[in-house]
């Protein structure tokens, strides 16, 4: 009898511990969000929301009048992220499809760890490569005076998000049941049509998850874009403009900002905005992924 009781107790404690583990990260997430919103909201005691959201001028420690417009850096963040995804998504899905469906076991055994190793390169190192290799290269092929611009940032972020995209997308493609492919072959599909018409669509929800994870990596990355994207606060005119993203602005300015000033609070507001942006992307992606979900 008492043995049974101990078992029940152990069961309860285990339940509690696992529930705690699950709630812990949610709790931290909520805590961060509440703190960002709470501090960020104080910005609007001294800055009008219209100015904050729709002005392109950001210069809180100005010589003349301080300005707190985030539009330029939001545009910069979106520009760099979209550019990175335009490069990384086709490359990443292509590589994942190759690894999962085409490559021989031996090739896979070499390539997969190599790709995962790419994720281990510190972002400062990637940023440095952006300055000394990618920048001069871009300047040369596009005939620019320098290569520190949004395109440079996009290329580097694409490289940094590739391992995430490839690893997750490959898992998704490999988990498509063989019966799907066999059905395709039985209907006379060749390997190419099988891959493009059957396997990839069946893995779509996993592939979209991969892209979203990669995008999260790109939108939140700081050091690389801070070093290689030029850091000019003006509104970007295109991929050849130097840009300063939201993350770079926070990283550069939070270290020296006097506590409790409008500048201090406005940096939290930028953080909250970035949080809401990436949360929004995640929700949209979830919706899309759900639409593609097959029951297999």
């Amino acid at each position, binding site marked *: 009898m008492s043995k049974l009781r101990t078992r029940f107790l152990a069961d309860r404690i285990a339940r509690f511990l696992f529930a705690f583990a699950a709630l812990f990260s949610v709790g931290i997430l909520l805590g961060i969000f509440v703190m960002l919103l709470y501090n960020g909201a104080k910005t609007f005691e001294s800055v009008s929301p219209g100015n904050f959201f729709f002005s392109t*001028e950001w*210069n809180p*420690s*100005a*010589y*003349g009048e301080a300005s707190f417009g985030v539009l*330029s850096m939001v545009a910069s963040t979106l520009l760099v992220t979209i550019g990175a995804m335009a490069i990384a998504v086709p490359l990443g899905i292509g590589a994942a499809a190759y690894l999962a469906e085409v490559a021989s076991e031996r090739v896979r055994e070499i390539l997969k760890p190599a790709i995962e190793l790419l994720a281990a390169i510190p972002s400062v190192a990637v940023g440095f490569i952006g*300055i*000394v290799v990618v*920048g*001069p290269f871009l*300047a040369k092929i596009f005939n620019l*005076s*320098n290569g*520190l611009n949004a395109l440079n940032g996009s290329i580097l972020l694409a490289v940094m998000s590739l391992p995430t995209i490839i690893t997750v997308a490959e898992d998704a493609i490999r988990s498509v049941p063989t019966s799907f492919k066999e059905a395709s072959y039985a209907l006379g599909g060749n390997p190419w049509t099988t891959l493009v018409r059957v396997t990839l669509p069946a893995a779509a929800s996993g592939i979209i998850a991969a892209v979203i994870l990669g995008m999260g990596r790109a939108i939140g990355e700081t050091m690389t874009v*801070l*070093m290689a994207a*030029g*850091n*000019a*606060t*003006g*509104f970007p005119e295109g991929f050849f403009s*130097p840009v*300063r993203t939201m993350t770079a602005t926070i990283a*550069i*300015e939070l*270290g*020296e900002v*006097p*506590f409790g000033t409008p500048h201090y609070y406005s940096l939290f507001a930028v953080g909250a905005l970035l949080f809401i942006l990436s949360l929004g992307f995640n929700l949209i992606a979830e919706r899309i992924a759900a639409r593609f979900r097959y029951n297999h």
Partner: protein
Amino acid sequence: MLGILPAMIRLGITIYLLLLVAACRFAPPGVTNILIKGSDTEVNLALSLAESYMEHDPMVSIAVTGGGSGMGIAALINGKTTIANSSRAMKPQEVELANERGIHPVPIVFAVDALALVVHPELEVDALSVNEIGQIYRGEITNWQAVGGPDLEITIYGRQSNSGTYVFFRDSVLRADYAPALMQMNGTAQIVEALRTDISGIGYVGLGYVLDKQRQPIEGIRIMDIAVEGSDEALSPVEVSNIRNGAYPLVRPLFQFTDGPPEGELLEFIQFCLSDRGQELVEKSGYYPLSPRFERYNKQWLHE
């Protein structure tokens, strides 16, 4: 269940105290720790002064870190450093904030720095006036043609907003805000790196950074001559006499801020920095020794 909580707090406190005791054990007795934090411009100079001082006084341990002038001043205000190195004066709000927290910053000038305007070696513009530099950085001149150069858009390079050099240059050369096109680089090295390849660029850096041990300009970049007024003769900062006699316009004092007038070991270290030996190291690091004006300025804090 509830009884566990106080027990855990007690355990936590015990561990904390044990760690504290352990931490005290590791510091050798009698050694004074001096922390220096701040300006990236001054970090190499501060290091060589600290190393030289520790050689002749092993009872003092000095740790030097960079991060930018703003970072050093913030650390002083928060009581997290003994000396804040800064290449700019403290702002009135910063002094106010420090006073509120019972910290009374004392500025000591320990070296003089000259700023150099740097361009690509192949750019055919030899000299600029202070006024022209201001116009370029304010975004009023955007093509090299306007200052006698080739038909080429100017790319302006500067430091990040937490750099003392950024603030000094803005307040004493621009006297207005930077153009939004300013490329805010993450350190002096990156400005120099960028200008090696960018023929349209111009950037400002501490002079010490672009001179070699023989005080000659380093390879791959060119240092501009600068005129006070458009009609004046343009002066090169590479000529030491131009800086010593105060004719070269872009000079600034480098500060060490302490909390209250320095005393004891700290005073001895600062006096070492200001001594002939210390000023020799200042010159070796590419900066300039104090002129009599700054020596008089320091006297008010440093009673013998």
